[in-house]
């Protein structure tokens, strides 16, 4: 069976650095994914009200597209898209009454009952590619880098769609070791970054973001990886403000995990799109890790 790829809105614009580095890396690892045709926005958050079925329609349509493409698996990169698609999928598998209502509403679509599996890129790397295969393709090992793996919320909560049991997740650590980087465990690795509250309650979001970044530094990390464009904004793009407010002692280079993958695989630096990352991310790779550093945007 085929594997489809769902990019989501942000990956086609502000997070091209996530998409381009991921797809190029996968190609280098010998895997080609087929992007879903006519995909639409997943809605970014799962609807939590019992009576709100209309907002389930968008993510379910995406899964119907995968079915039409003859796929049994949809791979996503953005953590929020993963959560929204995976939860809508579970709803269609487990709630017969809601499934009936939603299928009746989408009467122009094929009936859907959760046939497709929604998989996050990290899980896909582990299960379908394998850490040994990744390790064998590494051309520029990230030796000496002390990287804090940051999971955030939507990869791990709620439990029924968690890529690993919440508590002591290990996937990103295994990933970093495959690249020969040193994972640095820290207490706030699953703490929320403040999410969309950066718009409505920025002071609260900045406080938690600062706690995550400072916690990573205090644990001995020299950089941090993540997989969500909203976390990347809150943790990567607010640092100057956080330092000006005295909430953060120094800059922390923040990367999408796929950017470090591409660097370690020795791919052309253009695929990492460091022009979309915070400047400190590229500077750090250049200064602290010359062996793996790309030439620049």
């Amino acid at each position, binding site marked *: 069976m085929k594997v489809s790829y769902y990019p*989501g*809105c*942000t990956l086609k*614009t*502000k*997070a091209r650095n996530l998409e381009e580095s991921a797809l190029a890396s996968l190609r280098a690892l010998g895997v080609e994914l087929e992007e879903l045709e006519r995909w639409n*926005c997943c*809605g*970014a*958050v799962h609807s*939590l*009200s*019992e*009576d*709100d079925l209309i*907002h389930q329609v968008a993510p379910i349509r995406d899964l119907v597209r995968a079915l039409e493409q003859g796929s049994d698996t949809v791979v996503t990169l*953005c953590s*929020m*898209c993963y959560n929204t698609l995976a939860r809508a999928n579970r709803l269609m598998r487990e709630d017969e009454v809601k499934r009936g209502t939603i299928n009746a509403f989408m009467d122009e679509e094929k009936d859907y009952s959760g046939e497709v599996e929604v998989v996050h890129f990290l899980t896909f790397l582990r299960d379908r590619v394998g850490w040994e295969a990744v390790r064998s393709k590494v051309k520029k090992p990230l030796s000496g880098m002390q990287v804090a793996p940051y999971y955030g*919320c939507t990869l791990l*909560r*709620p*439990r029924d769609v968690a890529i690993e049991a*919440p508590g002591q997740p290990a996937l990103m650590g295994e990933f970093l070791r495959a690249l020969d980087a040193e994972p640095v465990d820290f207490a706030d690795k699953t*703490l*929320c970054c*403040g*999410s*969309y*509250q*950066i*718009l*409505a*309650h920025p*002071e*609260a*979001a900045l*406080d*938690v973001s600062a*706690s995550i970044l400072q916690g990573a530094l205090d644990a001995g990390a020299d950089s941090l990886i993540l997989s969500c*464009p*909203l976390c*990347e*904004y809150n943790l990567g*793009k607010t640092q100057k403000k956080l330092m000006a407010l005295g909430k953060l002692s120094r800059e922390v280079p923040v990367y999408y995990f796929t950017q470090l993958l591409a660097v370690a695989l020795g791919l052309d630096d253009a695929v990492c799109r460091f022009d979309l990352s915070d400047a400190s991310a590229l500077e750090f790779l250049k200064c602290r890790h010359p062996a793996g550093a790309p030439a620049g945007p």
Partner: protein
Amino acid sequence: MPIEISEKTVKSEFIEKVMELSGQNIQDCFQCGTCGGACPMSGHMDTMPRRVMRMAQLGLEEAVGKTETCWTCASCHTCTVNCPRGIDMARVMEAIRQLRLRRNVDMVEVSKLDEEVLRELPQIAMVSCFRKLTS
């Protein structure tokens, strides 16, 4: 602030509505406060989630309506995975939000958002914020 519990303030239909929208039995809560203790946003909340839950259990619709808790919630589900009574608190917060939003109120004025922030902000931030905080 004292809260009046009387025939005037207790609304049993509010309890039913919160339970119906959230799909949760809010009477299961035994007030341990784990939700607020685990919540990353609670330092900025005017009322702890545990208190909001107690007000909801008693049907104090007006008192719940005066709290800002559901607007400060980031829907991170930390309360949900930590509740020893198995209550999905994120769904209870959503029910309280929805009951207020469905009266045609908006908690974010889109036209007043900082342009510089919007230029860099990922779409998922805006979509999720407007889904949670506008009617």
